[in-house]
């Protein structure tokens, strides 16, 4: 598995844990996890080429950039190395896209859309204020997945005629807070912040809190929507600070590609269509269940370690 | 190349600075080879030689700027094992170097006291005594005749080349201790100013200091020096007292080295 999710991203634990489970269940097969530490296409291509050079029985890879990876992966497939895409797919139609066996992962556009739809559903139930303007806090301007989430949210909000805006806040907490504060000071009609990454959820909350915008969940004030089934987002929901988050089934994204590659190698069979593992909306109603699931997979200690609130 | 016998000194007096078999190379280039010279207090020694002879290199060693690769240097009979400028200054060596010595980004006053800033106590903390810096440096530059429009708080970059040179000399002289080394001190100076510098050098010697004077001008140095040391290609080729040889004779020695002496300022 060659991935862009490295030791800088707690989501890596999902993938490495699931690979380990696969190793235990399939003792004859060895899995290896290679990753970069940042969204650097160059570095990613370098380690991908290194991985292909070792001629493995199969490769699982996120399609960070379809054009750049196409020549590399199609050649590997021609040389007899089957490829399964995970986490990020090739968005082009089947005849143009990279000839991977299948894609296992979430759909980022759906993520934004489903979360937006959940907001509307709750608004109609009178639980939360009606959105007047939604701010999408984007911590990485180059990440295609985040852009897709933003587009999904935009599509959902269009149904109730609410404008959605994208703001690049950057990855540093102090800079992100400063930028959000500046933005909120003049865009007073923003009452929803959709954090495109889980890391910015506590930052958005504390900025809104400090400015007196009442981000705690209620039927007035500002509302925060997060992403990912990380302990950070989950605890935010539990504490009534975050409306909802989602799970993209990360564990499945590590485990299933390995299984599909194994089955293909052994029996020549592979799924016909993509396997969409998410989004599943996490909210007040299923939060306890999700906390239990996540703690069950990564353990209580690791769970606590990821809470920055 | 003629080797001329060492000059004779007052027997019994010990050299202030003694250099024995000193060698130094810059990479592959041998700058100094087996240099042995003695310098005594109360004399004015001229250090001459053509470009690249090693004069500046030798005084850099004596000023503590670079250490020799091999050989020994003694100051007041004590062997010097570590070479750094602060030690040389502490031992009483003041120098006027070519090209270095003043920082263009600092004021006249700060340059004057560079490395030995006067301090006063401010609630237990040692801070610059700016008043005494101003007063002392202002007095000195007036004494040395630098133009009135210069204020000691001005950047030293406002001074002309000649004024900077005069300033360097003023600084070395006013902090004088036991040795004054001058590397081409008359650079950038007018004829009258040159005359004054030479008078000054003689006065300092008469006050009991050792004055080491590097120059290209044989005739000038022959007039004021007690002794002349000639370096050629990193070696000492002559060490004579002024009476023992005429200026023409010295010039001849240098010329016989295969190159004719040039006049005017240049790197050694």
């Amino acid at each position, binding site marked *: 598995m060659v991935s862009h999710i*490295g*030791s*800088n*991203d*707690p989501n890596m*634990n999902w993938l490495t844990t699931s690979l380990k489970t696969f190793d235990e269940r399939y003792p004859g097969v060895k899995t290896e996890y290679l990753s970069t*530490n940042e969204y650097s296409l160059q570095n990613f291509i370098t380690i991908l080429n290194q991985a292909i050079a070792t001629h493995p029985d199969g490769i699982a890879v996120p399609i960070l950039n379809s054009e750049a990876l196409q020549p590399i992966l199609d050649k590997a497939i021609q040389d007899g190395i089957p490829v399964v895409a995970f986490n990020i797919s090739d968005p082009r139609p089947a005849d143009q896209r990279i000839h991977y066996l299948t894609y296992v992962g979430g759909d980022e556009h759906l993520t934004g859309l489903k979360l937006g739809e959940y907001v509307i559903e709750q608004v109609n139930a009178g639980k939360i204020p009606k959105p007047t303007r939604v701010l999408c806090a984007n*911590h990485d301007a180059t990440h295609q997945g985040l852009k897709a989430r933003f587009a999904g949210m935009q599509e959902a909000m269009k149904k109730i005629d609410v404008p959605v805006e994208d*703001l*690049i806040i*950057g*990855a*540093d*907490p*102090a800079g992100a*807070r*400063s*930028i959000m*504060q*500046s*933005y909120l*000071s*003049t*865009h007073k009609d923003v009452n929803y912040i959709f954090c495109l990454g889980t*890391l910015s959820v*506590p*930052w958005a909350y*504390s900025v809104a809190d400090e*400015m007196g915008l009442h981000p705690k969940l209620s039927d007035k004030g500002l509302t925060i929507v997060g992403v990912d089934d990380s302990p950070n987002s989950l605890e935010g929901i539990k504490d009534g600070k975050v409306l909802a988050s989602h799970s993209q089934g990360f564990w499945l994204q590590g485990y299933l590609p390995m299984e599909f590659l194994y089955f293909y190698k052994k029996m020549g069979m592979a799924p016909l269509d993509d396997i969409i593992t998410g989004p599943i909306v996490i909210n007040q109603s299923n939060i306890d269940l999700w906390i239990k699931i996540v703690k069950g997979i990564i353990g209580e200690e690791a769970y606590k*370690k*990821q*809470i*920055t609130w | 190349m003629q080797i001329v016998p060492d000059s004779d000194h007052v027997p019994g007096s010990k050299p202030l600075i003694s250099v024995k078999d000193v060698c130094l190379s810059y990479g592959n280039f041998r700058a100094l080879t087996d240099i042995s010279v003695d310098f005594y207090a109360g004399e004015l020694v001229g250090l001459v030689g053509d470009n690249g002879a090693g004069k500046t290199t030798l005084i850099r060693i004596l*000023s503590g*700027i670079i250490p020799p690769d091999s050989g020994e240097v003694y100051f007041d009979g004590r062997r010097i094992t570590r070479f750094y*400028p*602060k030690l040389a*200054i502490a031992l009483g060596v003041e*120098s006027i*170097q070519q090209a*270095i*010595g*003043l*920082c263009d*980004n*600092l004021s006249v006053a*700060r340059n004057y*006291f*560079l*490395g*030995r800033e006067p*301090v006063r106590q401010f609630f237990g903390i*040692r*801070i*610059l005594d*700016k008043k005494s810096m101003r007063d002392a440096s202002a007095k000195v530059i007036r004494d040395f005749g630098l133009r009135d429009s210069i204020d000691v*708080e*001005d*950047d030293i970059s*406002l001074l002309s080349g000649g004024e900077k040179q005069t300033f360097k000399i003023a600084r070395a002289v006013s902090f004088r201790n036991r040795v004054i080394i001058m590397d081409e001190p008359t650079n950038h100076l007018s004829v009258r100013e040159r005359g004054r510098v030479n008078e000054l050098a003689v006065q300092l010697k008469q006050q009991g200091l050792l004055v080491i004077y590097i120059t290209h001008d044989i005739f000038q140095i022959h007039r004021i020096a007690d002794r002349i040391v000639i370096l050629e290609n990193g070696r000492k080729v002559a060490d004579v007292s002024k009476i023992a040889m005429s200026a023409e004779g010295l010039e001849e020695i240098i010329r016989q080295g295969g190159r004719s002496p040039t006049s005017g300022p240049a790197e050694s």
Partner: protein
Amino acid sequence: MHRFLRRPDVGILIGCICIFILFSLWNPGQWFNWYTFISISRYTAILGLLAIGQTFVILVREIDLSVGSVYGAVGVAFIGLEQQLSVPLSFLLAMIFAIMVGLLNATIVIGGRLPSMIVTLGGLFFYRGLIYVSTHGAVRGPPQAARQDWFAQLIGGHWFRVENGFLWMLLLAGICGAILYQTPFGNHLFASGGDPASAESQGIPVNRVRTWAFILCSVFAGLSAVVTLTKDPQTNVSLGTGFELESIAAVVIGGTLLAGGRGTVLGTVLGSFFFTAVRSEMIAFGAPPSWYTSFVGIALLLVVTVNTLLSKRLRSN
């Protein structure tokens, strides 16, 4: 008067007055707002502390590209230590770590005779990697007790609604300005940056001065991180990404020459304010973030040009 105009920070002083007037006229409601002041002063403090440290290094003709990662590493260390130890002790140990980093930078640059740009660039990657590896990608928030602790409040709390971090930055800026302009060490530092050979010849221990500059730089990076985290403890492994360039921009906009030997701490503080205020207002008025980035580049060029022209004109007088 002439000497005042020759100050390296005259350019940024004019620049700051201009933008202050500009923003006051453009939208006084938003500009003269307490939250705006808090937000700008907070970030100015964080960037300012980082940039003050960088000023020392740039004054001696070196550069420190690792400050962003050191800021992050010390910050993460501070929070990590707070899980087990008292806040003052965590702070002390975190600062010792910062000192060690500065010392290491200096040793490699001076001992190895290597360009500081390369060495500290290595540091940038090394310390960022150290953060990732030691935290496995997740930074735990400090315990509630640590956040309420008197020491944490001393650094991260407020004093009559003004944030302590901002006040600390102003205090330290004043002290550093005094160190630079009123002490022998300051004179040595300027000499070491302006003309190291001449400084050396006058007995100044140039390498020791450079070492102190690197140490001060890392320590200030660490201080900035502690100020940030005592106020806002929710952080991430990305803490400090990109800060190295921001700190250099603030220093250079503030009038300090990259060639060394000239600069003021006031200029650096004003440069940090300029950077922060311009970004803040550009975003408030809806400019796309890319505009702001380009604007900083233009501002950098403008201020440097103004500074150079001013000093050239005054020199020829």
